[in-house]
């Protein structure tokens, strides 16, 4: 080994030793955080949250149509109620304030639901959304649909959770 290369090595060693302690490398972390932030921002563009009502699990479907802001009837496994509409499709506070005794039981849908559902005089029939628990029987669903039709809502939209195809 030549003396010059030894010297160069020694110099390099000295330089390394003299270098001040570096702080944590935060650039990568900030990159991840920034990406995550943008991802979440995009995700929160359409906040149609499922209502947090007890005993309500929406069925899955391939449908990808946006839920419209319109009157909504919710069918849980214990009863039925009408969701308040406040500019957004789902009023976040309504289902949580609903107590069990405020629900319309299945055996009095035909008499009591109509009083909570104001009549519409939209031309060609009004639109209404039905959010049903996935184990609701057709018997109950039919009663709800009939009340809706009697009140002038003849275009029924079923709300679902966007999920994978079944077939």
């Amino acid at each position, binding site marked *: 080994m030549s003396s010059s290369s030894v010297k160069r090595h020694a110099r390099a060693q000295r330089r390394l030793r003299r270098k001040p302690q570096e702080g944590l490398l*935060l650039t990568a*972390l*900030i990159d991840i*955080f*920034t990406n*995550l*932030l943008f991802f*979440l*921002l995009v*995700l*929160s563009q*359409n*906040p*149609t*949250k*499922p209502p947090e009502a007890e005993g309500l*699990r*929406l*069925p*899955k*479907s*391939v*449908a*990808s*149509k*946006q*839920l*419209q802001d319109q009157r909504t009837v919710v*069918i849980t496994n214990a009863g039925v109620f009408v969701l308040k509409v406040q500019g957004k*499709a*789902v009023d976040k506070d309504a289902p949580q304030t609903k107590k069990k005794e405020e629900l319309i039981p299945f055996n009095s849908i035909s008499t009591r639901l109509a009083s909570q559902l104001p009549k519409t005089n939209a031309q060609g*029939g009004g*639109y209404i*959304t039905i959010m*049903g*628990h*996935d*184990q*609701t*029987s*057709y*018997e109950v*669903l*039919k009663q709800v*649909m*009939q009340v809706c*039709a009697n009140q002038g809502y*003849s*275009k*029924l*939209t*079923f*709300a*679902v*959770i*966007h*999920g994978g*195809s*079944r*077939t």
Partner: protein
Amino acid sequence: MRHKKAHHVEEPNLIPFLNLLVILIPYMLLNAVFSEITALPPVSLPSSSAGGASSASSQDQSLVLDVILYKDRFYIRDRNGQQREPEKLIPSAIPIETYEDTDKEGKKVTRIKATAYAALKERLETIHRQYMPKASEIGLLMEKDTNYDMLIGTMDAVREDKTGHNLFNSITVQDAPPDEKAGGASK
């Protein structure tokens, strides 16, 4: 040495920005909606169209399909009762297999197997292609104890073909006639 010092670049202080991110990200994660609610296209009721029977009798020749959801089979028929014998497609039945599922709360849930939905979709696709390439009207007839999940599953099967093209998009929901096959037996 002096030369090196002149080149030393002061790094920006990123700690306040990091603090902001650390607060903002958990907040947004908590608020994020991972299961989005969507909607199926509107369904109509037979009562609003003044009864299916009267309109059916006025235009006897047109073919309108009905899919009846019985306990053990999908039954496809012509609403006007015509027999389309040669192909044995209308009327025809597709057996339904169900399975018991347990949900998060431990309750039992009955669902129709995906193979049955797929078979229904395939049969309807064939009929649609052969007899009624422009039709979009279909009736879904259900028994009282059919559950909502099965209705949605059937609607999905009926609405689009495998490639995502429209099949039968305007759906009417009504009651199923009594099941002749099961009439004498267990019911």
